[in-house]
């Protein structure tokens, strides 16, 4: 049921309907009651509340010792200009989408990448050989080879925190309250309520990845904005004028 819903929503290109989510939520609830409850983690990013402060980006670096040439999460900042409209700022937080149909998983030759009990897509470093096929396969550009550990690295939804009852670092420190994290299997959770009550979208819906990261207020112009700048490396040549630009 769960998969069907997400597949359907992905297939039409953009998640649009509160009603469908509501129906799915109800049946999920019934299903959940039958067995012992296992949380399925998800994130709902309300773009109306993102102020582009990059608190999430830096908190993630600190929490996860992310090496200098990479990011596990990041906020892309756009100036969006549509014909006949004033230019507008769009801040787009990006991270591993912890897909239910993760393209990174089947390409792994050693089964290091796997889907964990609560829905996280994780990498078992004891198995990973650093071949980076998963890095290539990710449609969200969310993976990298960690040059310190020599293995594939990515957002874990702060697995090491959620297991201890804490929130992911990026969520805990989100100043505008844009990043919301919780149990999609619990119909009463904040994130489930947000999915029911808002029009939501996903990134790269055409990839049919069934992601667990949803966006409120995502302009369709941006839903493909994932490639290239997830791990943003400013060029450092020593000449001030040649430094990477940025806002």
């Amino acid at each position: 049921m769960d998969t069907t819903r997400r597949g359907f929503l992905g297939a039409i290109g953009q998640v649009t309907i509160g009603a469908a989510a509501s129906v799915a939520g109800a049946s999920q609830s019934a299903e959940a009651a039958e067995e012992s409850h296992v949380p399925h983690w998800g994130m709902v990013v309300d773009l109306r509340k993102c102020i582009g402060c990059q608190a999430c980006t830096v908190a993630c670096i600190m929490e996860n010792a992310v090496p200098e040439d990479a990011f596990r999460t990041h906020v892309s900042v756009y100036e969006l200009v549509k014909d006949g409209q004033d230019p507008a700022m769009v801040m787009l937080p990006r991270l591993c989408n912890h897909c239910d149909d993760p393209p990174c998983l089947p390409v792994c030759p050693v089964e290091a990448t796997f889907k964990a009990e609560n829905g996280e897509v994780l990498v078992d470093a004891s198995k990973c050989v650093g071949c980076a096929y998963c890095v290539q396969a990710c449609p969200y550009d969310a993976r990298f080879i960690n040059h310190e550990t020599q293995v594939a690295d990515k957002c874990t939804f702060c697995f090491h925190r959620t297991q201890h009852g804490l929130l992911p670092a990026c969520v805990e420190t989100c100043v505008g309250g844009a990043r919301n994290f919780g149990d999609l299997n619990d119909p009463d959770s904040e994130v489930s309520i947000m999915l029911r009550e808002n029009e939501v979208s996903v990134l790269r819906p055409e990839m049919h990845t069934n992601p667990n990261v949803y966006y409120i207020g995502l302009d369709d112009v941006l839903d493909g904005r994932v490639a290239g700048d997830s791990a943003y490396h400013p060029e450092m040549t020593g000449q001030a004028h040649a430094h990477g630009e940025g806002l």
Partner: protein
Amino acid sequence: MTNRRNILKGVAAAGALGTFGAGYAETVQKLAKGKWSGKKPRDEHVVGNSIPAEFTIDPETGDVTLNPDQAMSYTMCIGCTTMCGVRVRVDKKANKVLRVAGNPYSPMSTDPFIPYESSVAESFAAMAQAGPGQGLTRRSTACGRGNAVLEQVDNPRRVLKPLKRVGPRGSGKWETISFEQLVEEVVEGGDLFGEGSVAGLREIRDLETPAVEGAPEFGPRANRLVWMNCVDDGRDNFVLRWLKQSFGSNNFTRHGSYCGGAYRSGSGAMFGDFKAMPHAKPDFSNAEFIIFAGTAPGNAGNPFKRIGNLVAKARSDGNLNYVVVDPVLNNAQNGPSGERARWVPIKPGTDGAMAMAMIRWMFENERFNATYLANPSKAAADATGETSWSNATHLVITDQDHPRYGHCLRGSDMGLTIEGEAYSDADPYMVISETGPVAAGASPAPLFHAGEAETPNGAVNIKTALTLLREEAMSREMSDYAEDCGIPIEKLVELAREFTSHGRKAAVSSHGGMMNGSGFYNAYALMMLNTLIGNLNWKGGTMIAGGGFSETKGPAYDLVNFPGKVKAKGLPFGRNVPYEKTTEFKTKKAAGAPYPADAPWYPNAPGLATEWMSSLVNGYPYGAEALIFRNTNPIYGIPGVAHLLDKLKDPAVVPLIISIDPFINESTAISDYIVPDSVMYETWGFTKPWGGVATKATCARWPVIEPKMAQNAEGQRVGLETFLIGVAKRMGLPGFGDEAIPDAQGKLHPLNRAEDWYLRGAVNVAMTGEPVSDATDEDIELSNVARILDDMKATLKPEEWRKAATIFAKGGRYENIERSYQGDKATYAFNPPMLVWNEGLGSFRRATTGTHLPGTPAWRAPEFSDGSKVHDHYPREDWPVQVVSFKSPLQNSYSVGAKSLLRIVASNPVNVGRDLAQAHGIKTGDMVRLTTPGGTLESVAVVRDGVAPDTVAIEHGFGHRGFGAQDITIDGTTMPADPRLAAGVLLNDLGMLDPTRGKAGVWVDPVSGTAVRHGLPARIERI
């Protein structure tokens, strides 16, 4: 192409991952379909190098189990001026801060913040999965910079030992010296640098000899020690005790005049206090419409996170619509919020034209709150259910040649018998009646009147304050205002109509964007819009800060008064007093020409660092013998100051410069000595919010890690307090030593260490009003206040230490959120009147011209100090572009060393509007040259739609020469420059001197004396 996406952050960004080979074609494990049954991961192999969790909190019960290797402490971030309460996570063994989050007790970091009575354990659970809304409701945050600045603690370029310059000032060469040598040399002076004798602090502290022979108004020679501070980081009260009450110098200034001072002065004009400059902020959560002009909620500002959070929620879940009026589109606007958050581009420095147009329209269409404005007194306001009042109905003397021109008509002017001095509070203000002027009473008075009043000294022309404002507003046509600010008339009317369509639930907000040549009047005009709808102290309107709990004046200890206390006196170094008080004025007047003075004076301004630079290099009104920079950087921060730098570096001009700073910034770089200081989570302090918090809030900072500075011979860490105490003891200054701090019974306690001061300050905070509860053993353990527990027990009285422990365990003292309002009104109301006419402003003469300026808000094109128009010196034909700076969401002037920030934004290309770029053939990525009358810089261009026409915008925080952007040599060992720290450009390098000043000084606003960094006349070319 219908849509254009401008990826602001990464023109040169290459996909980090895009270089690997073709994708793997086969699948090893087929993807399962249907409900996924995941694996149970083995922790240690799946989380990379992530740091272990700080504790475990049961999601159901909220029970907390500590991680014994880590400490969690509530203290304060000093990564910017907001100074948020934060929670710091420390690796105990490594004495290293691992990460920072917010303090859920603190309104700066959490909304809604948790009740103060909550135990520390409950505070931990509140922001975990066990908390309300699965932890989302009470989540407590640090911003991007706040998350990164812990890196400054371990910055390899920190100054850890006292330094003395080797070679000329600014050479970048230093030697380490002992703390004891440092104190001896700065106190005793002598031939310290082989350049001749230098007076030490002992000689300078002369309380008898005048600073200026024949001009006693400037006080004693001790005033020739001048102190430049940045911002009050919670330690200024200690500094002020040493400087003013112990050493006896009256010269202390902060950074406001090159930060947001023009706004604060404009606000101060309306709130009736040019020194404290009160200001109100919108009630972001309950307002229905806000105009942000010269401030950018969520992009920058103070309190940065709180405003960002409240505005984000209000535009998404609440009832707020707002516009951001700014030459540059920034993160304050939010595309996904649609019409809720709109951007209105404006020409730089012309907000006053917009505001006066709105005011004109409000007068023409009677869209001002006449009922509110008609109350001439607090009694009248109370009688009509209002919560503030104004002087709109008060009569003002308008005869230019009347000795009281520009002042309000008072009872004594009319010959009324008053109980008390003329023009004192006992002397009533006058309003008009059918029988002529009468004392303002408890009933409404007429708003408009222009006429003559018969006084015992003859007839005098009078008008009401509101009449004067209306005349000023009507003196220009809507089309004039529209042309000047670049906002079409229809848009101006739309803004005015919407602003006046929400009762009291509308507001105008401003701040640092007022730093332009007309900034003072622009700010006064913007703020006046609030008074015209009477929104002050109303829920949904504007509100002042609730304040805090004083650490210096409390029921337990008196940290202000002490035996032998000195009263510092004399006119201040920055000339922010009436010129007419000087001997120069009297001498010139006697000679028949009192004006112009030799340089500008600013009676309607606070202390001015901008003007200090002119005073320092010109020795006017007198020279400084010693200058102390404390954690401040005017050489980086003041536009145009580079033109004064060579003179400032000359030891013949200022013989002794001492810096107290953890880093070698652009200003410390030119000092003779550097005293190392604590960083971030190593330091003590108490602060309260500047604004935006309706309840009382005091944030407490304490060392949650062992400071890294070297120790002195007594084993104390060298820093600000150690230095000042050491100097005081060597000089025998009062107020320090074994008998320095009186308690409530008058018994004297020692002040030999920082702890003697701050621990007793914490007791004052704790005991004010209803004392706080004692900290429990659990609170002390969970917050790691155990780290300083022995010191507290040894220093404080038995009944005190658990109270102080509560202050540190909870990171301060916070009134509960329910205290924000009483019904529809703010609990903490501002009671003095809003000044539609400010008589101090309306009556003073500019020292440089002898002429008057308007006493109401007004729109005036920028002027230099001689009253000539800036555009007459630098005509638009030659200087068609205007340059502005804007605040970065990440960098400030002292954060560049936090290396994670440069990972996200590595530099600051100049932002060029699309039309301007096309006219000059500029494309994104091109090198451009910007030239102003003050300087030239070259940088990369980013072409944007979100920049006003003919405007170029530069993000602040880059273009450093200090902090390691240049080589630093200490004891012969050179730490080479890091080009990353030098990245980008600094707008202030384009700043200008005022060419009409005889004594060199930077271009400043004529009333507030504040720096001009917006609207610099410029040219641009592609190179």
